[in-house]
């Protein structure tokens, strides 16, 4: 199990660092996010807080979502071209094939996240929480990234085409961020939207992650949020795995 997962992960990483185009895009993207969302949009928000720090967890979530989309895309491409079948006929657990892809996606995502953080700190973001907040924040980000990497894979397992995949992914990518407290505080939004946000993994992630970077008015206990995130990850991996098993029928 471990060997197979490692092999699939390694293969993706080898291809990743060889692909200049993908690498370049992934390096420039986060810089744009920080500039546009953190600095640009931050100016439009009321109050006089430290916007880059406030926005940072949201930008990290956006980055993780972007990587998840890319990871699903990579899987779909392997599926449509038939590369996946090499794994499928090998005597390895189906879970290891899934985990290999998820870990590759999350690794790329953290490669980007590292760049986002560097740029953000240059742009003036600060860590205001203690070391505990920071650790929680990292854990939450990993859970969030793994969860959405799995969901993107689950979508990619059913899609008939690349267009279809993007159509599906788009449905929950940006709307999910906007229906959470990732990009703006929820104080001034209508009640129905606040309720929607309560059932949104992006909100759970922000609840745990934001205290490390900015003053945060919690809307639920961070322990509950963390538990919900864990449940979300377990559920999404389960969905991806059962869809993967069903691919043979």
């Amino acid at each position, binding site marked *: 199990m471990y*060997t*197979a997962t490692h*092999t*699939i992960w*390694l*293969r993706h990483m*080898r*291809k990743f660092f*060889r*692909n200049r185009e993908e690498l370049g895009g992934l390096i420039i993207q986060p810089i744009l996010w920080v500039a546009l969302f953190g600095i640009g949009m931050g100016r439009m928000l009321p109050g006089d807080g430290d916007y880059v720090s406030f926005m940072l967890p949201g930008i990290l979530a956006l980055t993780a979502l972007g990587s998840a989309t890319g990871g699903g895309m990579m899987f779909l491409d392997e599926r449509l*071209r*038939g*590369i996946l*079948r*090499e*794994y*499928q*006929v*090998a*005597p*390895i657990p189906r879970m290891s094939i899934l985990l290999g892809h998820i870990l590759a996606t999350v690794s790329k995502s953290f490669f980007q996240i590292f760049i986002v953080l560097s740029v953000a700190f240059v742009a003036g973001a600060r860590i205001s929480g203690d070391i505990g907040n920071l650790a929680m924040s990292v854990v939450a980000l990993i859970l969030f990234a793994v969860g959405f990497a799995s969901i993107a894979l689950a979508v990619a397992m059913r899609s008939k085409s690349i267009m279809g995949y993007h159509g599906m992914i788009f449905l929950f990518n940006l709307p999910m961020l906007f229906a959470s407290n990732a990009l703006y505080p929820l104080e001034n939004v209508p009640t129905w939207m606040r309720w929607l946000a309560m059932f949104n993994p992006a909100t759970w992630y922000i609840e745990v992650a934001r205290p490390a970077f900015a003053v945060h008015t919690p809307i639920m206990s961070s322990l509950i949020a963390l538990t919900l995130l864990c449940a979300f990850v377990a559920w999404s991996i389960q969905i991806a795995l059962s869809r993967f098993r069903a691919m*043979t*029928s």
Partner: protein
Amino acid sequence: MQPMIQARTLAKRFGEVVAVRNISVSVMPGSVYALLGPNGAGKSTTINMLTTLLKPDQGSITINGHDVERESDLVRRVIGVTFQDLVLDRDLTGREALDFAGRLYNIEASKRRARITDLVEMVGLGDAIDRMTGTYSGGMRRRLELARCLMMEPKVLFLDEPTQGLDPQHRALIWDYIRMLKTQQGMTVLLTTHGMDEAEALADVVGIIDHGKMMHEGTPSALIGQLGSDLIRLSGTFTHLHTPEWTSEQWVTSWQASETEIRIGVDIGARRITQVIEFVNQSGNTIEEVSITRPSLGDVFLQATGRALRDER
């Protein structure tokens, strides 16, 4: 002796399309079985079911004595598979592709290196093995694919159209490898093809399939023998034709006639041809061409399905 591959009454449909209906296949250890059929016959679908990639709607499969569905891991441990559409990763070198294949099967590093050296030698890829596979020609890719599925020393090989798109030299090369794997390593091979020459050259047993059905099965010589040792073909206009009485005589092994072509399987063509021509002429038909040939698997296919199996090369 127990068959290495044993499939019973397989069936698979995709929505409205019935891709495979009631196909049974049995392959003895150390022999080569060729599934021969035209495009869309259900060859790839059958291979996918045999290699755990696709669940049959009906039927059962055992490989090396293990059930494909319930003991899929044990089955996967002994099979090597190449696919019809090549699955090479363009951003890896040939060596890396082989190395990753070896890793998937938990082969340790030193053994992988040795195995790669042997296989590169066998398929003659030479220095090209360190080039990106994206730069390979079709022939090189097929050879690398074959090497890849041999990395873990499988007992059973499944090759889906192993020579598709290859020039005659490369085809002969792949045939040599397959014969070598069979004779030197005792491998069991199931391959698909729509080249009857390929089936004739390689297979111990040929299964002819069309529209998902097994039409004929047997050794190439037995299948061809059913048609007689010679085949008389007449082309022309045969609108006033009835089946002659002598088709029931022993020297006639098959009779097939349409308005433009007549094919008769006989014992000795040169001796029977005058009688045949006389008969056809008498009934007021026009003969344009006459030939006597040894029947081929293509003729067996025509006999079974009523249409020609075009060799696409």
